[in-house]
């Protein structure tokens, strides 16, 4: 089966700084790829490239055997959790309705088939119970489940996830990541998952793309999450420790700066 997403000799940088260069990556249907790396290593820029919002400096990128373009509905996008405030005039299910027909101009009527589609999506992400609650009254985890449902509305070939677990508690981290994992197993949807912390999804990931210091490594978690590999990537001594099924990276100079509050340094 041909790749869902294919990057060939891809390079991107801003000004003098190279984010990544000579990147070759084929993502197969149903494959779960985690994109790791410190802030400013080009993780979010990679998602923008796939969304057609950021052209490459050189090389090529192809999605489903064609060029990437803005607003391709075969890509589902799950953003960072931004809490929707109380008073927003939307109920849980309306978030999903926007995923189904929110791009359409014209009189804002929702067809019966679309309502049934929304019911099915609510069911699929386990949000039926709070579908009629004002979305501003829901917890961050509940809102994030709805966003997964919103991204699934177009029946995507590829799910792009931009730190979707950020600021969720452990239980909701597991819930949301299992939702994404189930989707790719049952529907063969490829997943490109940007994250600071690989631990909540360590058991699901097929391959890791680790970006740091203008370089990158691609491979299975066992291949990439090794002290020698990360030391070479960062160009400074880095210790990668595995304890009880978790990975802890110690000495990552960039990660330390923005994870001082976390108690441990996530991979």
């Amino acid at each position, binding site marked *: 089966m041909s790749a869902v997403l294919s990057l060939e000799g891809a390079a991107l940088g801003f000004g003098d700084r190279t984010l990544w260069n000579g990147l070759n990556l084929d993502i197969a249907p149903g494959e779960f790829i985690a994109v790791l790396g410190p802030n400013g290593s080009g993780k979010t820029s990679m998602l923008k490239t796939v*969304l057609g*919002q950021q052209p490459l400096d050189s090389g090529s990128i192809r999605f489903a055997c064609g060029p990437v373009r*803005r*607003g*391709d*509905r075969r*890509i589902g*996008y799950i*953003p960072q959790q*931004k809490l*929707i405030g109380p*008073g*927003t*005039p*939307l*109920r849980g299910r*309306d*978030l999903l309705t*926007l*995923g189904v*027909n*929110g*791009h*359409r*101009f*014209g*009189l*804002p009527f929702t067809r019966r088939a679309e309502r049934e589609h929304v019911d099915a999506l609510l069911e699929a992400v386990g949000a039926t119970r709070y579908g009629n609650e*004002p*979305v*501003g*009254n829901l917890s961050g985890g509940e809102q994030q489940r709805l*966003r997964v449902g*919103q*991204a699934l509305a*177009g029946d995507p070939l590829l799910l*792009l996830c931009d730190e979707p677990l950020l600021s969720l508690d452990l239980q909701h981290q597991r819930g949301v990541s299992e939702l994404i994992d189930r989707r790719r197993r049952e529907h063969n949807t490829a997943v490109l998952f940007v994250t600071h912390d690989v631990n909540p999804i360590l058991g699901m990931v097929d391959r890791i793309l680790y970006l740091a210091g203008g370089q990158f490594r691609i491979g299975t978690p066992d291949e990439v999450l090794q002290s020698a590999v990360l030391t070479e990537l960062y160009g400074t001594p880095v210790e990668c420790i595995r304890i009880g099924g978790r990975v802890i990276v110690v000495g990552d100079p960039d990660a330390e700066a923005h994870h001082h509050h976390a108690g441990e340094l996530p991979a």
Partner: protein
Amino acid sequence: MSLALIRLAEGDAGDLWSRMFDFSDYGALLGLVSNSIIAAAVLGIVGGLVGVFVMQRDMAFAVHGISELSFAGAAAALLFGVNVVAGSVAGALIAALVIGVLGAKARDRNSIVGVLMPFGLGLGILFLALYPGRSANKFGLLTGQIVSVDDPQLGWLIGMSLVVLIGMLLIWRPLSFDSLDSDVAAARGVPTRFLSFAFMLLLGLIVAVSVQIIGALLVLALLVTPAAAAMRVSSSPLLVPVLSVLFGLTAAVGGILLAIGGSLPISPYITTISFAIYVGCRLIAWGRGRRRVVPGYAGS
């Protein structure tokens, strides 16, 4: 002596009351202002709809800024003897475009509005000071003058409101998406830049209409307060705009109906009704919150 004081107070109160509310010859007055009532009704409806997005996109301050520039445009038109409605529209659209171009992000937007607003207000005051005509016309632009707008211009106001109404309905759904989460909307193919511009233009038009009807200083009473009140009592994407429209309509038309008998400007009646509705909605929301909490305590 004390008796005389009381009589005096009674006399004042009676006088004040008759200046505020006087329903003699009501039928004849009603006939004279029927076109104004229609214009106010249309503004109440469209303002209520637009307000839902003004609230969601956090643009109340921008609305105020646009209205001051619209006032400057209208004042310039008055001074140079051209169509006041056209001047008001020109000012509002220029302000809407400047804010739309320079203030895509909320924080930039607030600083740009903060810079534009006193400039616009100052220009307007300059033009009015230079204007040799009657002073009643001058203050009308700031505090409302609907009854003094002539019929052809009322036609323009109603027509522009209808354009905004149709425009809003056509972009309603993608604009909701963009207002909720612009990044996701863009990823789904919503033309987010086009939508912000379209909304700014529609907003500019309806602000220009509002300046003519309730005055530049009081525009928010019809473009923000009804939607803010509706959002207090509902989260339904259908009920919020419906309530907002009802509240706007009640305030605009109710204000004129109460005001025409007295000798005072219409705007205070509109703003007071609008505010009373908002307070009522807050009380309802507060009462609901209490009821919801009580069984929770009982259960735990």
